[in-house]
């Protein structure tokens, strides 16, 4: 693997990004608007051809951060810089034009393809978004190349999404993302809804693409084993904040944040001898509508001290390239 930290200039960088949503549903509509801070001052830089994993519980803001980083949503504060261009400052038109350098693959392949579009229509539209006047012959060659890249036969071109398996649909979604020759792809839990065998195939496909195309990935996932296999670095999110960011081996060998440790411990190993001591988290994840003061994790943390409930720790470099947001060296 390339050492991603060696390259100084990141391809895409989120700088102190926050995203706040207004929650105006139900009773709360009567008591005035409440706000959800889905992403809270998150900074994350991804180098060219680097794959960064983003893990955390559901609702912790992973997907929102991903969408902000490809310019699908504008951050409420902070900025996203792609190849030196501040996306947040672009006009709607310019932003739309630069979006095609960044693509997204979704979790549920059943809803990520237009049910009325055949495979040919879906991919053709994506190719045309990039080269609007490509001659038909080249278009055909392009289509064939893309299908080949994701390992689907040309006969699937005339299929509609409902005629395909989930794995095939996910391959089409990946082919669509690749059609515009992007330099950065956000993969938003691309294997979470697939069965195990298909998962392995899609993970293998992503690993091949990573190697052959030199595309940078933000890989959002639940499954830590997949993250370990695919990613160079991993960011751990808890309630909108990045609590730990480290090269993959460092994170798996010596995680420094108590939340990361709990996540690691939750992974089942097939080998009973290798099973780690379970680190049980007590309590439910707090509501993002009303996050705890200080360190968001302190009500569930067994190392918590008084200061944790008063002061939220900033990310600090605990070891070279290993950032952690905790007051203590654990």
């Amino acid at each position: 693997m390339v050492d991603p930290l060696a390259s100084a200039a990141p391809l895409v960088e989120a700088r102190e990004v926050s995203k706040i949503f207004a929650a105006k549903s139900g009773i709360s509509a009567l008591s005035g608007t409440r706000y959800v801070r889905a992403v809270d001052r998150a900074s994350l830089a991804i180098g060219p051809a680097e794959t960064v994993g983003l893990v955390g519980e559901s609702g912790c803001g992973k997907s929102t951060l991903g969408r902000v980083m490809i310019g699908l949503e504008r951050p409420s504060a902070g900025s996203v810089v792609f190849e030196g261009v501040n996306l947040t400052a672009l006009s709607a038109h310019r932003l739309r034009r630069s979006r095609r350098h960044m693509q997204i693959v979704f979790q549920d392949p059943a809803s990520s393809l237009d049910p009325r579009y055949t495979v040919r229509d879906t991919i053709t539209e994506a190719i045309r978004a990039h080269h609007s006047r490509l001659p038909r012959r080249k278009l055909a060659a392009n289509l064939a190349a893309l299908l080949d890249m994701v390992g689907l036969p040309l006969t699937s071109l005339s299929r509609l999404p409902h005629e395909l398996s989930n794995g095939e649909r996910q391959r089409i979604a990946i082919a669509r993302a690749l059609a515009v020759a992007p330099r950065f792809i956000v993969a938003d839990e691309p294997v979470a809804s697939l069965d195990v065998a298909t998962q392995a195939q899609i993970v293998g496909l992503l690993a091949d693409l990573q190697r052959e195309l030199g595309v940078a990935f933000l890989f959002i996932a639940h499954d830590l084993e997949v993250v370990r296999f695919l990613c160079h670095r991993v960011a751990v999110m808890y309630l909108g904040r990045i609590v730990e960011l480290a090269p993959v081996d460092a994170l798996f060998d010596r995680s420094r944040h108590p939340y990361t440790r709990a996540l690691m411990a939750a992974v089942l190993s097939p080998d009973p001898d290798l099973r780690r001591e379970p680190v049980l988290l007590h309590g439910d994840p707090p509501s993002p509508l009303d996050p705890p003061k200080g360190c968001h994790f302190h009500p569930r943390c067994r190392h918590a001290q008084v200061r944790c409930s008063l002061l939220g720790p900033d990310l600090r470099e605990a070891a070279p390239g290993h950032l952690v947001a905790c007051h203590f060296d654990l």
Partner: protein
Amino acid sequence: MRDLLERLGRIPVPRIGRPSGRVRRIVRRFASQPLNAAGFVFLALVALFALAADLIASDKPIACRLDGTLYVLPCIARPAALADDDNFTIERAVAARGGWTLLPPVPFGPTQAKVAGRAGRLGGPSRAHPFGTDDLGRDVLARMVHGARSAMLVGFGSVVLYALIGILLGALAAYFGGPTDRVVMRLIETLSSFPSLFLILAVQGLLGVSTLWQLVAVIGLTRWSDVARLTRGEVLRVATEDYVTAARALGLHPLHILWRHVLPNSMGPVLVACTFGVAGAILIESTLSFLGFGVPPPTPSWGQLLTEAFGSEGSYWLTLFPGVALFATIVSINLVGEGLREAVSPKARGARL
């Protein structure tokens, strides 16, 4: 080259083309249900009657040759020379002086009162008048054939008008949101707070003398709120689908996305509502005509015929035949609507509840 590869059977060369076969697929799926086909055929028949009403039922021949002059389509052209003659006087003249004549299948005009020597008033079904005659001695079948024209024009015309308005406003409201949405929603609420039949009655009363086109305009402009609301909801639902986000990520223009992805996937329920709307509009036209606020009396319409039955108790043919025509048309429209909805839905597999 292409042929060679295909014959070798190694790589099937991708055919690049329009999204072909989709229309054919929809038609095939639609026609596979006998009820759909029956509804469609009946509706097509009514539409044919509406289009060709003057050829099917008229007091003038389709063509005739009399005293050395050839008259083509006097039933439509209405030449001055034949102004005073009907099918039967022409037939008698032909028998006396030579020539020929081709009569329409129903040899009576819709407003032709008292057919000389043949019809009485309020005559029951007979060979000459299969559906009987009304209180002025007009042929009921002829009036029904011409009444189909009013029904189809008002039914389809007003729905096309209000579907266009409703889809446009609903889609814009949902897709652009914010102030646009608020303005459109207030409009919808204002309009739908009036009971639509009374609103139409009031407008018709204010405007006075009515034509069919005026009816189309009044129904079209007062009933778009349901379509707008439905479209808005569907567009809001579809706009959150991942494939719309994916299209945004491709950098496609918002209007392209709205037109190619969002609207086609929102149109299913709207389409069904619109076909049912055709039935509704035909019923409104009949109701208005029945109440005397629709087309003015000489113009035939099914609702008119039903009104005429008032005060002629015992003349069952005045209510039965127009009533059945109205009923069958509305059932057919509903069948076609349901069938279309199923055929257009890409996941439908021919199952019917």
